[in-house]
């Protein structure tokens, strides 16, 4: 039969190529979807199920799913922890920390991205040190500095602490954005008489906006998830969501309650990521078309 053997296959080469490409894309997509399900879907689903386990009907081996679901674990967290206070603090501190880390990172990122300064690579590494070092080590040393400046147990101190943790991400992402701005555009603007302010307003800021949004996401999620420094310098006056989460996730691991707090912390972050992802896509497009 025609086409039944590869030797007799008379299908045009480009069609076969297209089929092969489709197969590879299909396999890659399937691999991506399966990986996402394993790495993201399953843990989230498990967290949702564990958060709904009824205390009177434990979820144990060999049950595949919980015998009975209820809101008891959620009610417990809202009744017996300071989660509401923590939510208010977390979502007040994070936007301010993002703003401050942007303001403080911008000049450094500009210099690192656009100027050739000696020791630039070393500086780029130094900037990342707070992320590389263990959180509690950074917290213990920084708490001394904060105490010396009377910044512990204060809202501003907390914002500053979260800013410091967000700055490495912000600098790194903004630096890459500044680096990627074509020099031709800046030269052309200068030839047309653009001053510093016009260049910042019409070239730098629009072109680093995708990077800025990505940096904001990193800084925001870092702030929302920051535990060590907040715990040492903020509590007992301030509690954030991770300070509640760690009480269930740390030494005294209670999976049901930890799942509730993890979901409370995770959900706004996921929504934010989707929003920023949409903005980022449109921004890249508009930036490339010069319509920003």
């Amino acid at each position: 039969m025609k086409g039944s053997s590869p030797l007799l296959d008379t299908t045009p080469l480009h069609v076969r190529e297209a089929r092969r490409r489709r197969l590879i894309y299909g396999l890659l997509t399937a691999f991506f979807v399966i990986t996402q399900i394993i790495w993201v879907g399953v843990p989230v689903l498990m967290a949702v199920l564990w958060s709904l386990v009824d205390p009177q009907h434990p979820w144990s081996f060999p049950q595949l799913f919980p015998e009975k679901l209820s809101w008891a674990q959620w009610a417990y967290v809202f009744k017996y922890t300071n989660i509401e206070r923590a939510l208010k603090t977390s979502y007040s501190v994070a936007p301010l920390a993002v703003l401050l880390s942007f303001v403080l990172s911008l000049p450094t990122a500009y210099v690192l991205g656009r100027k050739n300064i000696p020791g630039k690579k070393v500086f780029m590494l130094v900037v990342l040190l707070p992320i590389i070092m263990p959180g509690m080590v950074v917290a213990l040393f920084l708490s001394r500095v904060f105490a010396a400046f009377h910044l512990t147990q204060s809202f501003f101190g907390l914002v500053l602490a979260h800013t410091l943790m967000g700055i490495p991400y912000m600098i790194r992402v903004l630096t890459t954005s500044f680096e990627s701005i074509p020099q031709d555009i800046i030269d052309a603007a200068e030839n047309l008489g653009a001053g510093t302010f016009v260049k910042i307003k019409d070239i730098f800021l629009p072109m680093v906006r995708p990077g800025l949004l990505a940096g904001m996401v990193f800084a925001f999620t870092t702030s929302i998830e920051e535990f060590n420094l907040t715990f040492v310098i903020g509590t007992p006056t301030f509690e954030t969501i991770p300070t509640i989460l760690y009480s269930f996730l740390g030494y005294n691991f209670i999976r049901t309650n930890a799942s509730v707090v993890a979901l409370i912390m995770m959900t706004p972050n996921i929504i934010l990521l989707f929003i920023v992802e949409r903005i980022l896509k449109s921004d890249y497009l508009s930036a490339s078309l010069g319509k920003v």
Partner: protein
Amino acid sequence: MKRVILAILVLLLAAGIGFAAGAKEAPKAAAKIDLQKATWDQIVAAAKAEGQVTFYAWYFPDYFKEAGIDFEKQYGIKANVIVGDQTANFNKAIAEKDQAVGTIDVMIVGGQWVKTTMDLNLFYGPIKSIIPEADKLAPSLWEVQEGFLTRGFLAPFHRNQTGILYDPEQVKSLPQTWQELEAWIDANPKKFGFCDPSKGGSGQSFVHSVIAHTTGGLEKYKGDTDVVQSKVANWNLAWKWFQDRKDKLTITMSNNDSIIRLNGGEITMTVAWDDNVSDQMAKGNLFKRAKMYIPKFGLAGGGDTMGVLKNAPNKAAALLWIRHITTKEQQWKKFQMVKAYPARMDIAIEGTLLTEEDRKNNAIPWFPAPYKSYMISEFVKNVLMK
């Protein structure tokens, strides 16, 4: 324009600093009275003048929140209950150690941190002579906590005991003697679990029992204030016991991890703390059919304590908080809410996971503190790293 931007930045910074200064509460002066000499009524009056107490815990948020409400109702003193993580709590206390006035008044002290905190001189005391009815609280726990000397600085507020937790559907005959346990482990590879002793007290208790049974008992260590090398010379027998069974034992990551693995069916028998088990069971993390016992070969017990920080801003209120938690009413309430065994010896409790008979006959005391530290480091070196 540059000047305008600069001015705005300076203004923002100034506003922030101003907000920070305004938001910060001035630390209260520590109680002026000599707490060691004052009468209890004077301490209560000083506590009321302080107006608040900050308490750090890492478990039982339900009970401690209720206890805080009761405290406020009874004394009119605000109770800030912070339930954090054990390690983070102590790291914070240690970070604030050199400050004249810290932020923590009173905190729970678990067995793992007694040595570090006592060595660092973190707590105010002794407080045994100050707290009313102190003699009603577990006397041995006032002096020694899980093998470490506390000398009346740390107040017992509940007792706990390690035992063997098991799934009665999987385990039909319970090993009681050392030989029976060995035979059970050999017959059921990987089904017996205990936690890494550097991560939790239940694991320490098991390794402690292994040492006792492989190296000639615990009597010889009594009264020692330092590790006597000749007495630990044969501990290699204990490490050999573990190495010989490395493929048959399951070493877990924490006290609660042991319970979680039992719930998940990975293991069917594990060493656990009774209060951990009750808590996990109450929250739906462990099947209700689970049972617990102390085998005849013996497992160690202990309890948790509370200590008043040396630089506590509200020391009198902290002492009053300890008194509040150790009253008969609160001890009973704690047991009803979270099933934690009271530290008070004058409360008769029935219907616990471990029977009174088990506690009386099979609970064993820890060997002295230096041996415990030595045991943990040697276990890591000779078992985990080999």
